[in-house]
């Protein structure tokens, strides 16, 4: 047991070489798209809307096709079934996501300059937690909006789950829900962090082994 603790402590305190550090720096850059591009797209087609209605979910706002007028149109349609209005102001997520991404960026930078394995492990674990929590939060939001329908609505429908990923037919609409460019960048961050960890671990194994001899 003690040996393992010693072992792992030495591992975590070890310095990390330039390669993994550069990768973490790359990860910082890959966080930037989250401030510019949509995280998620939902596009809806119906016979009356052959060009489709598009919702763009950014880290800081909700926008849409046709100069954001699609958001208005979706809200007018949702009003019939008693769904709450989708506005940037009504989602707290649009305040904390940009903040958290910024904080993660700073932590990444700290890991780059501090350069310990622990730092690397920290940021990777934190990042995974953030990503999973965000996905869960998004899914839960979709579920609650789809089920929390006004009983006084003009048209009564059963609560429904809008698609988190992929295609779903809801009434007369064909809905397609897919990650946006920013999410792909976030995915790339995860891959880059894993690569950095892997590289650092391999380097550690190579340098650590002679010490054991």
């Amino acid at each position, binding site marked *: 047991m003690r040996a393992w603790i010693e072992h792992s402590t030495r591992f975590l305190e070890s310095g990390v070489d330039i390669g993994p550090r550069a990768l973490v720096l790359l990860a910082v850059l890959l966080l930037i798209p989250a401030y510019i591009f949509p995280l998620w797209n939902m596009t809806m087609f119906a016979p009356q809307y052959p060009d489709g209605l598009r919702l763009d979910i950014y880290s800081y706002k909700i926008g849409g096709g046709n100069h954001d*007028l699609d958001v*208005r149109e979706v809200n*007018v349609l949702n009003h*019939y079934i008693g769904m709450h209005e989708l506005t940037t102001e009504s989602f707290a997520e649009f305040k904390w996501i940009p903040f958290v991404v910024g904080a993660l960026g700073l932590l990444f930078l700290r890991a780059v300059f501090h350069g310990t394995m622990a730092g690397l492990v920290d940021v990777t674990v934190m990042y995974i937690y953030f990503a999973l929590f965000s996905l869960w939060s998004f899914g839960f939001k979709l579920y609650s909006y789809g089920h929390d329908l006004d009983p006084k609505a003009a048209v009564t429908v059963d609560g429904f789950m809008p698609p988190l990923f992929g295609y779903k037919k809801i009434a007369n609409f064909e809905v397609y829900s897919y990650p946006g460019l920013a999410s792909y960048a976030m995915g790339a961050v995860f891959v880059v962090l894993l690569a950095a960890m892997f590289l650092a671990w391999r380097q550690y194994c190579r340098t650590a082994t002679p010490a054991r001899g």
Partner: protein
Amino acid sequence: MNVRHRGGWSVAALVAVVVAVALLGACAPSAPKGAKPGKAGGGGATSDMSVAAGKVYVAPGDLDEYYMFSSGGHSGQVYVYGLPSMRHISTIPVYSPYPATGYGFDDDSKAMLGYLTWGDVHHPSLSETGGDYDGRWLFVNDMNGRVARVDLRDFKTKQILGPVPNVSGNHGSAFVTPNTEYSMMASRFSIPLPKGTTTGTDKYATDYKGVLTAIKIDPKKVPGLVWLMPCGKSPHGVDVSPDGKWIIGSGKLQGVTTAFNFEKVQTAIRNKDYEGDEDGIPVLKYESIKDAEVPVGLGPLHTQFGPNGMAYTSLFVDSAIASWKLGTWELVDKVPMSYSIGHLAAAEGDTVNPDGKYLVGLNKLSHGRHLSVGPSQPESSQLVDISDEKMKLLSDTFTEPEPHYAQIIKADKIHTIEVYPKEDNHHPLAIWDVKDAGIARQGGKAVVKMIAVRTSFTPTEFTVNQGETVTVAVTNIEQTTDELHGFAILDYNINIVIDPGETKTVTFKAEKKGVFPFYCTNFCSALHQEMQGYMIVK
């Protein structure tokens, strides 16, 4: 010879005469040459018919190539058609109230119409830049001495100018100059001037005058002087060739159309080559200015042009269109029109760059060409393919009364907006949030600010006092195209329609007491029949 033989010969002669008369009678035609046997369509399409059908078919979802703006005659409207399908796409109300769109019912359009509730629209004229259609505006005349401007961004009448003083019967109008500097007005009737002067018609020759007016569109100073050009037997139509070389004048009671050479006209003016004067206006010598008399047929009226020097003249008496060539003056082809053609319109056919391709004959009579609808029959517009030298009749279309002339413009020159953007609405009574809706009183008048959006009016009811002057300002806060909402108050003759992003007002006196429903007249949504409210007059 004996009597019996003579009797026999007489009988034979009589029989021969009867047989001869009977045979002659059988040869007499019972229908005009070229009449087709049978009326109904059946009997299988020939290959000519399938080619023609293919040329006019615009498949569901596809768009027409050209817009045709037809004058509406005494309906006071302008009709919008698509070519080559010849489908009537919409009606633009100009001089007459149009309940379907609430034109003439809301305060602004009512003010534009003035005291008149009708107009007689003869000639539409598209705005031009460098002699080519530029898709900005459509100008149309009214016999009541007015000219109107329709904005082609939203196909709405924006301005009506007039009645212009002393112009009696504004017919030769609203033709624009090549850079839309001026729109012309020319009176059809001569009256003693100034209007209001009463002089008997015995003094017609001396005291009755016609008027030619130019309406400034873009302020520019251009000196105006008038000369007369002789044109045989009731001159009717005057058209200028695309290169500006010739002026084609048609006298409707003769068999030729005259091509006047513009350079020769200018020379004649410089050299004062006159053959007299009319009322002080010099008349140019016919022989000095004419280049040719083209024997197009009987009753030539108007000429339109195609590329490569092609000219097309409508023949009222012959009920046909003749095609011929500028410069060589040779006749090319003739196509019958059913029936009695007046004007004709070629694709961009009165610009410096005619397209050719399509020609529409605007006919006065349509009898027998369609299912009968009683003593009053629609007008006929026939689409002709002029892409080859041999003209081909493609289709018959029947119109509301009554297109006189039309303008055909390439569809891609017109750029419409799909919605009135919120940012462009500067109406003082416009509101965008339901919080701001309600009734307020200012200076003894009640003003109701109302919002219309799928699928309700806010406020859903309002109360006014009997005798009060009420203004209702409805803002349609939608920003989706074609999301119109109507607003009608029963028993009060109120009927307005508001386009998405627009604010419209209607002012009236609440003279009748009671509870009056108002509702959305223009279909808007699944709950359109539930979009309603009450006006309570105490």
